[in-house]
């Protein structure tokens, strides 16, 4: 089942520290939303508030249109996949997955059948009678997911569930999470600090910083058209060029005073915004591209990061004429 989530002007404090500062966000039913940001930005706090593990100091949280004030985690139509999975070590996988159903009074045979169905869904058939300690990290993560989905929540909350997995496994799990979400249609709210993960799975990304939302939108939009300096820098490497009264080192820019933002992969040998001759400072081969640091002669103090095609053969000291194919201007 599925429901929308509405966060209205929520503020949360821990003593004197402000964890969330008047945050508002609307999540549609069936959406896969990722809360992205560095440690301490408030993303986990927000997740906990949705889950009912804490009450906000100010503001409201509605799930499916219902105000959740005073409603504890047991009564909310949400379940959480915890960062350390929190699988009950003294129960079998089937008992773990069936726990929520047991709390709802389902009979033993029914529970077992449903548990096996869920374990099947997450790709762990025929393991119902094993115990958590017999499984690998990736397998435990799936069991935690199965357990959370078994009670058919309206909203599934995931607290950095892939953090403990190695890169290859993480990529595989990202795809699976996306597939499962499409299948069950539940609203997923996923917390992570990995921007690549966010882009891989999110319908919409919510970039957070210091208790506020710094940017919001589908991955393509947040990456290519960032709405804040913070989100631009967080989503990936970016070159920041100061613009004063419509003037930049590379010519006039439509806009007044602010910052010109250019992604490294948007700079090449041809483009709409000429950068003029640039001296190569260093270059390193990265497989999919050649990463170079360059100093444009128009602004010798600037050091720009550039991604050139992997077949380029350039050396430090060379001078190349470069141009940008895409850029964004952010008002100061």
């Amino acid at each position, binding site marked *: 089942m599925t429901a929308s989530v509405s966060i209205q002007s929520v503020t949360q404090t821990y003593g004197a520290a402000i964890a969330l500062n008047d945050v508002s966000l609307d999540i549609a039913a069936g959406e896969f939303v990722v809360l992205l940001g560095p440690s301490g930005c408030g993303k986990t706090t927000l997740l906990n508030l949705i889950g009912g593990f804490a009450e906000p100091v100010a503001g409201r949280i509605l799930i499916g249109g219902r105000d959740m004030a005073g409603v504890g985690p047991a009564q909310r139509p949400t379940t959480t996949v915890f960062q350390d999975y929190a699988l009950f070590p003294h129960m079998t996988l089937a008992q773990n997955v069936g726990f929520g159903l047991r*709390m709802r009074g389902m009979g033993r045979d029914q529970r077992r059948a449903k548990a096996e169905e869920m374990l099947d869904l997450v790709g762990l058939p025929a393991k119902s009678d094993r115990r958590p300690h017999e499984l690998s990290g990736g397998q435990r993560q799936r069991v935690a997911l199965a357990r959370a989905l078994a009670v058919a929540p309206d909203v599934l909350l995931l607290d950095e569930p892939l953090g403990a997995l190695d890169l290859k496994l993480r990529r595989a799990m990202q795809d699976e999470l996306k597939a499962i979400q499409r299948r069950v249609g539940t609203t997923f709210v996923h917390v992570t600090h990995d921007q690549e993960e966010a882009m891989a799975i999110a319908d919409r990304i919510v970039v957070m910083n210091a208790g506020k939302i710094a940017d919001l939108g589908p991955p393509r939009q947040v990456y290519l058209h960032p709405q804040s300096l913070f989100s631009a820098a967080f989503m990936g490497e970016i070159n920041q060029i100061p613009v004063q009264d419509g003037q930049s080192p590379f010519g006039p820019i439509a806009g007044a005073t602010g910052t010109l933002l250019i992604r490294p992969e948007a700079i090449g040998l041809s483009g709409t915004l000429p950068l003029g001759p640039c001296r190569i400072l260093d270059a390193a081969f990265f497989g999919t591209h050649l990463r170079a640091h360059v100093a444009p002669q128009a602004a010798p103090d600037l050091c720009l990061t550039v991604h050139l095609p992997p077949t380029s053969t350039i050396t430090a000291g060379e001078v190349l004429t470069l141009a940008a194919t895409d850029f964004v201007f952010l008002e100061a």
Partner: protein
Amino acid sequence: MSLASQERTLARGLVAPAVLWTLAFFVVPFLAMLALSFAHMEGRKIVQGFDPGNYLRAFGDWSQLKALINSVEITLTVTVISVLLAWPLAAIIAWRVPQRFQRLALLLAVLPFWTSYVVRSYSWLLVLGKNGVINQALMGLGIVAEPLALASTRTATVIGFVHFFVMLLTLTIYANLVQLSPNYARAAQDLGAGRWATFAHVILPLTLPGVITGAFVTFVLCIGDYITPQILGGNTELTLPQLIMLQMGRSGNFPMASALSVILMAVVSLAYAGCSRWLRLDRV
């Protein structure tokens, strides 16, 4: 000599003192005691091969057997009561007391640990005695006319023991509760479990091994203790350690004392066998 075997020789050299000490002053004495338990007294000790006389007496003679029964009864009572009293105390300190006061609360709960064990038992005499605090208070309030015989009874021994072991168990159970990830309870609640369901299905099973380990330690320390029953128990009934000391003191009957000691160890081993299922490290 290869590097590996050099290392091994050095390691053996470093381990040797500890091992030799343990062998010389623990293993050998125990074996000597074991051998002695099969001897019997004729003014002087005579090692007589395999004379199980002492053991037969220990189980056949009612006054001897009673001491063993007393010890087991008292120890089981003390263990159960102490666990039942200490568990809530540890839980309250771990989960109700605010984080920054927990250390202080725990320290306060075990502070009397730092009185001498002998003095601590003695001080219960002051509380439970005929002229003691409790009796004087009861008489002063007019609740009783005659002082109650509280000291020099099995009850006094149990109280004296429980006082000590509640403190010990509070410490060990607290340490056990505190290392339990809070996410287990949260996960249970998240899935719909109420307070009691969370406790019964998640918290209790996960902390049980630690509690049982504490209970086992309590059992071992209690059953082998001479001091508390001697001070608080009076002369009407004896525990096994008291009997052992009696055999040594008055009659100098070392063989008998040795046999009784071996029996004491056997009881402890039985208890260990009974608990061993939980005493293994739990997998988390």
